[in-house]
């Protein structure tokens, strides 16, 4: 992938910046240019919205067969997090004992290295989640 393809999504990846519909108030992550509920009525009214960085584990899995990019990480935990703002976000759960992960566990978002693409000399960063008190 090109550097630009990564760079233009940095607000979402680094700071969990999504959108809030100025028409109905619903929050979305990642960003959307229209609200799927309001459709045309929301056009031009979508505002940037930064999610609160806390949430709880909604569901999870420990990945044993990973893609080539993540082979050196396996086994690792992937989870869907119910953020305090109500939306779900998928990301890795790190700095945690894989046997201790459970549904309902409080977590917070942190900025970590997602991977690198040596052929374009790029290191990609983005959110991962850690246990709330870590």
């Amino acid at each position, binding site marked *: 992938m090109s550097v630009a393809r990564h760079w233009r999504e940095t607000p979402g990846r680094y700071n969990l910046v999504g959108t809030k519909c100025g028409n109905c108030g619903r929050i979305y992550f990642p960003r959307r240019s229209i609200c799927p509920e309001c459709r045309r009525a929301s056009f031009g009214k979508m505002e940037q919205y930064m999610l609160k960085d806390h949430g709880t584990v909604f569901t999870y899995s*420990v990945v044993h067969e990973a893609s080539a990019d993540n082979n050196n*990480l396996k086994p690792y935990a992937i989870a869907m997090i119910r953020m305090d703002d109500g939306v779900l976000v998928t990301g890795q759960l790190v700095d945690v004992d894989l046997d201790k992960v459970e*549904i309902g566990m409080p977590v917070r978002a942190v900025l970590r290295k997602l991977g690198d693409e040596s052929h374009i000399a790029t290191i990609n960063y983005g959110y991962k989640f850690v246990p709330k008190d870590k």
Partner: protein
Amino acid sequence: MREVAIIGVGITKFGELWDASFRDLGIEAGLKAMNDANLTGSEVDGMFIGNMSSGSFIAQHHISALIADYSGMASQNVPSTRVEAAGASGGVAFRQAVMAVASGMHDIVVVGGAEKMTDVSDEAANSILDSATDQQWEAMFGATFPSLYAMIARRFMHEKIATREEIASMAVNSHAHGALNPDAQFRKAITLDTVLRSSMVSDPLTVFDCAPISDGAAAVVLCPLDAAKKYTDRPIKVTASAQASDTLALFQRNDITTFGATAAAAKRAYSSAKIKAEDISVAEVHDHFTIEGIMALQDLGLFKKGEAGKAVKDGQAAIGGKVAVNTSGGLKARGNPIGATGVAQIVEITKQLRGDADKRQVKDARYGLAHNSGGTGSTVVVSIMEAL
């Protein structure tokens, strides 16, 4: 709108077919279907090809032209269209063809589905499959395709909709049927223990919860129902073919224990066919993962929510049970060459309704259903066929 009939079907063996190229497979299935429909070839006036990712698997785009060319259709300039919807590519191609015939735009249409997956490494194939998810916001963050279904399975177990054993029993059912299908990739029955004790892919799903990587192709020939008897004395009626969409990413949904697109497509299909789920006696459901099959049985209304897992474990999805599910072996045992799968399902239902399914024949089946899904239920096609 005209009523539409299936007048021919053809399928290749599914599996790791190192001696067969993409074009070999596509042509073999197509010629078998044309032969079955007693066509010379000159009658065909339209083609649709389901294929997910030939560009990534064999570095060849424009396979609509390739198949038209090598099947002898380019010499008569037959229009050929490639259709992509990840795992639902074949089902969507079938529905496009049904619409083309129903509308009167085309009369004799060949629908093909093909995928050649083993010319790349397993690791590369899995990365290509991951692109059926939201690449930017799921795969990029470490979610694999199996891990998304593993997270659905986790919710099923947490909400007590199905137990781990009940989920695993979907693979036992598919393998029992695959053992009876000479074209299946795996023709061996397995036990629950095999599923539970095989190596972990994404906890709680093991290798035996997941469909394999496969090569293969399937094809069917459609024509207007009122002309079908000219070609075959055993036409099968396409009673409904409905499609629905949902969000691309799984995390965009509040409830992940149901696929809204499956429920919506099923509702539209039953309504269009003027039948109920109880009228279905044989069904091919999309079991890329065991949990996906169990969830589909519920969303299709074939079993109630919370009862599908137990029903499958108790043999209610076996041939002779309440509804015979995945008599071909399903994606799990028949194999899952992605673009071919949706068309292979139609082939199996047609064989069942004609009484051509040999050792796996379901008795007195009038209605058969095919459920084909792409990604995490982001595109779903439900088609209903009827014996005449």
